[in-house]
């Protein structure tokens, strides 16, 4: 269970989030949609304590994480896996070392067992045999899939995905969506996906939250959101821009 209560965050004088409130139940998958630069990544980073709010609460399994220091957060973060927008692979390590990172550092596991699990995880994201490559040798989509393998290998209870399908071709996007669903259903993972890929939002979300105007503007099941009459939601779903914004 993840709960956010009246979360506010400013960078300098610029408010990014101003009173965000929502709750995601255990085993549920929530999709957060919203315009680029609207603060979706910032919101996601608050859920795992990478950023501290100016005010408000973030509760993980009824435990408040906003006042925890970095060391107190470590056991909380063990429950989380996160896929970053830019994958954020460690570029000094090979693919296998990246994927094995959490197992090596937090789980004291035999080397053979680690190697077996890494191979399985890479198989799952459709990248078998890339163990000894460096992240710089991979394409953007491959990097994202390695990032995904790195996050799911230790079977976390919560998965946070930051734009998992942005910039990927439709076939790879589809395989990532299926992977998200598979991880969610097989491991009963509570899932939060940030995206503006509406097709993907519809497929992976039990519920959709729309972040707009620094707040949760609309929330509901995919059906409710896709049939919403709210003009902001409609514009976003249909991808309509306000023509007045375009000036030459």
């Amino acid at each position, binding site marked *: 269970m993840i709960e956010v209560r009246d979360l506010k965050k400013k960078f300098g004088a610029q408010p990014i989030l101003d009173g965000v409130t929502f709750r995601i139940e255990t085993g549920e998958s929530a999709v957060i949609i919203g315009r680029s630069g609207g603060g979706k990544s910032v919101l996601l*980073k608050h859920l*795992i*304590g*990478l950023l501290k709010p100016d005010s408000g609460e973030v509760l993980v399994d009824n435990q408040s994480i906003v006042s925890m220091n*970095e*060391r107190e*957060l*470590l*056991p909380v*973060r*063990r429950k*989380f*896996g*996160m896929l*970053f*927008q*830019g994958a*954020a*692979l*460690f*570029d000094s390590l090979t693919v296998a070392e990246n994927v094995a*990172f*959490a197992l090596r*550092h*937090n789980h004291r596991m035999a080397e053979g067992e680690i190697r077996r699990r890494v191979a399985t995880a890479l198989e799952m994201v459709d990248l078998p045999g890339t163990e000894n490559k460096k992240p710089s040798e991979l394409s953007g989509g491959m990097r994202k899939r390695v*990032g995904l393998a*790195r*996050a799911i290998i230790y079977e976390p209870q919560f998965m946070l995905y930051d734009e998992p399908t942005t910039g990927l071709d439709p076939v790879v996007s589809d395989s990532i969506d299926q992977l998200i669903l598979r991880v969610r259903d097989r491991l009963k993972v509570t899932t939060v996906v940030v995206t503006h890929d509406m097709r993907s939002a519809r497929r992976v979300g039990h519920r959709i939250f729309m972040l707009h105007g620094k707040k949760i503007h609309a929330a509901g099941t995919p059906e409710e959101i896709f049939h919403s009459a709210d003009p902001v939601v409609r514009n976003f779903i249909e991808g309509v821009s306000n023509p007045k914004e375009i000036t030459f």
Partner: protein
Amino acid sequence: MNFLANKWVAPWLEGLGRIALLAREALGSLVLLRVPWRSVVYQVYYIGVKSQSVVLITGAFTGMVLGAQTYFQFHKVKMDTATLAVVSVSMCSELGPVLTALMVAGRVGASIAAELGTMRVTEQIDALRTLATHPVDYLVVPRLVAAHLALPLLTAEAICIGIGASYWVGVHLLGIDPTYSWYNAIRYTDAFDVLIGMTKAFIYGGIVALIGCYKGMTCSEGAEGVGRATTESVVYSSITILIANFFLTLSLGSIVHLL
């Protein structure tokens, strides 16, 4: 005056405070957890290899210049054979540690800041945190311990090379008597001079690593941020080393005097 205080003094004090907090966090991590020896050994190797050329050249040419200049002055008062003693004492307690530390700040401090800065702007440090690893444990502690170990070794190397080079210049180019040179050098170089030099080198290692790590981990967005962090780490560690050297000379000197 007030403007000056707000613009310069306040950020400077804040930076100093944050570095102190980083040092405390690193110390806490060292006490709480095992030292990650594997990464420490790798970092010692990395720091050592990166610094070989600069340390050798700096040590050799400083020793040679110091030897030649001392000879030119001492020759006037017929004290030729004291030349090597002067070189040896000043290399051991002042020039060896300070010059080595400045060179290492330029090579290793800069590369630490650039590496951690790049990791920060590409969100690799955030990724590390999501994988339940404390960045101080994984990134700062190995570099700090390695720098503490490597700098005394590099300093000892620079001192030996410096004295050797100065001996070579004195005996083979300037014609000083080798036996008396050695005799005086050994007679006037105290074990405490060496000890002071090593203590200083140990401390400067910490300064270089801590400032490099701090600048890297707090660097601002983009390539420009990484560039600025790199430059600042070199400038600040160099200045800190030079200022610290004065106070260390005073305090270590008076401690030795008491003993």
